[in-house]
């Protein structure tokens, strides 16, 4: 399993490197930018809201890329003839995708929470307050977008996965705006992630490699 996960990471290293770089840059900004006064607070707020959007698209792109390149290069067809089953291949793929979301997201989230805690907010808050409560559904949304990407990568041409995944992500992102940051969004996103994984597994397990 470790070999499969390492293979997935290495094959998609562009995503992981980009995620690590972006996370490092934004984390540094949020941690050290506090010395830049009022503008910084505005940028924190803007960043908290805007960063999840391209991040969600990137996570979805990872899912699309995994499926699309797997079909194009017949990677699973090769692996499935070794001493690994389709289940191993799928689990490794999903673990790699989730790792990407964590790598890209957690440092930024931590930096935002830390930065917000240093700002003199108008109100004392519990548990890092709103910043923490925003980050959890945002993280779940990242997972959900990745899982949506696993659905969208199946068509053979390049246009359909690209546009289709973009469309689905654009439709999905407002769910946080609509539902807010409470238990409802957790329930919806967790169920959505589960449903996407079930469907992705069903397609992968029954498809010709």
């Amino acid at each position: 399993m470790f070999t499969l996960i390492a293979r997935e990471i290495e094959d998609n290293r562009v995503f992981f490197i980009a995620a690590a770089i972006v996370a490092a840059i934004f984390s540094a900004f949020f941690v050290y930018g506090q010395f830049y006064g009022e503008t910084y607070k505005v940028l924190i707020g803007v960043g908290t809201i805007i960063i999840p959007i391209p991040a969600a698209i990137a996570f979805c792109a990872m899912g699309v890329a995994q499926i699309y390149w797997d079909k194009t290069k017949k990677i699973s067809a090769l692996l499935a003839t070794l001493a690994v089953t389709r289940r191993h291949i799928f689990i490794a793929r999903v673990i790699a995708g989730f790792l990407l979301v964590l790598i890209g997201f957690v440092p930024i989230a931590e930096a935002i929470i830390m930065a917000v805690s240093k700002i003199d907010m108008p109100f004392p808050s519990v548990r890092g307050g709103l910043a923490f409560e925003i980050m959890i559904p945002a993280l779940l949304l990242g997972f959900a977008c990745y899982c949506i990407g696993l659905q969208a990568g199946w068509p053979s041409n390049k246009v359909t996965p690209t546009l289709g995944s973009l469309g689905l992500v654009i439709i999905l992102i407002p769910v946080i705006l609509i539902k807010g940051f409470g238990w409802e969004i957790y329930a919806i996103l967790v169920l959505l992630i589960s449903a996407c994984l079930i469907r992705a597994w069903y397609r992968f397990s029954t498809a010709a490699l």
Partner: protein
Amino acid sequence: MNKQTYNPIGIIATGFIVLVLLSLVLFCGRFFCNAHLALGSSRVIISPSGLIPDEPAPKRAGEEAFARYNITRLGPDEPNFRYSSVYAHIPSNSVLISAVGAVWDIMAEVNPYRNPHRDANERIYYWYADKNNNVCFDKRSGLIIHRYEDKKTGPVELFAGPNGVSGTVELSLGRFYDPIAIDALGGSCLYDKKTRCFYAISFYDGKVVSKGLQLAEGDNREPIANHAGADGGLFYGFYDEGLNISWREPVIWNVEKGEWKQRRWFSPGDAQSDDVYGLRGWDWPYTYLVLDKMGRIHICNTKEQSLTQCGYLPMPHSFFGSEQQSEIANPRNVLGYSFCQVTTSQRLPADTNKSPARSDVKYLGMYVACLSREGTAMAVAVFDPNGRLVYRGDTFGQGSPSATTILFLLENLQPPVFEIASYLCSDRIEASAGHRALFILPNSFVGMLGRYNGTKFDREVFLPLLMGPSLILSIWLAFRVRKDAKIIGLSGTAKKWWTVGTIAFGLPAYITYRLTRSKETLVTCQNCGRIRRPDMETCHHCGSKWEMPELTPPNWRICD
């Protein structure tokens, strides 16, 4: 061995994905339609207000709704005099945006007026300006803590319990158990839900605590928390930016200065009238307005230990009109409300730079504005000092018919099952939560019908009409699904489930069917000539097996 076996879990998973994504698309469409409609119910003006004794009587309640335009009537004898008015308006469709989940949660976090906020030390803040200026309830000690900056002495901290106010924490102060703030500035007027008692705390004037009426158990006049609005007014409301209501004093044209001159409490030097009108509580904090959970407004006098009804939240119009509705709106069922008292007192001499004594302030009445749960209708009511309705004004969203039609059609793309649930459960879902609903829509037309208090016949006639497009669509889609299922050879049980499911869930079910149906290309049965599935052992039309070879092999074999 057939790899593409029927997988109910996969189908349910696909259905859920389709349902969520489709609901999000429909939500966005409905939101834009509602926003468009909300702009049509943007303002109500009542002029004259009916609260000033020497003004002509306004139109009585029950008569035609007043003008929606920003024109106030001038006095008949004095062209340079403008009557008092009550003016309510929604400046933009931020009302709906405020109800959206993320905005709601962010505002609740940063705006203590929205919800009492709890911090790590188990303190609930009723008002917060900064760390040296705030009012909170400390759960551990059971005391109200008021911090403020005194110009002379610096930061001051006062502790208040049922038995008094002190500069230190003392057991003799007693403790509150479960207080809610029911005044504008937060923390001075309380109701303790455990002891069922009203309190008024004066932190500045005498540092006393006045215990008001204790309600009997089961008394349905139990108040709900009210949250202060922006500075400059005492707005009790769900939000302060979205629903603006104001009372305008009578004004006179100042010929010398060339401007309308308003009279204020704190403006010495006016010579036109001896009366001034204002909004301040006439014996604050000992006397204040309280809203109970049934929608009635009372004057709570802690000194007299009385609770006297002085008004109520007027129920805004719904799509089905107002005649059959309850007159009084439940606070849970409206998106926003705002109410305020109007008082008067004698003008003080010009050289006196003081406020009138509390005992000189007279209660003239109050006004209330209420926004319907859909955000598309507003009702404004004015009550006299005896609590009688003096005047009522209403708007109902008269935005474009096309927006209404599109909204209706979008609501009908929801699954019929959810529409029925909306009809049955709409009054159980809080108004603001309805604006975040994805699946069950309490603010839809069907939801409105569910809250409609008309006759059973009315409801039974309207319900099929409202759900008609949805039912027609579902039945048509179910027919198509059944036809296709028959062609591709689904089993009888599967066909039944799909048909019932499509009737129940409509468009999402149909899309799910198309995504999950077998993709196997059908071939012609050599027995009956109809198309059959190659992955099934027998033809699902004639039952024949695969008798004839599909290709034309030679008739010889060389085998062991």
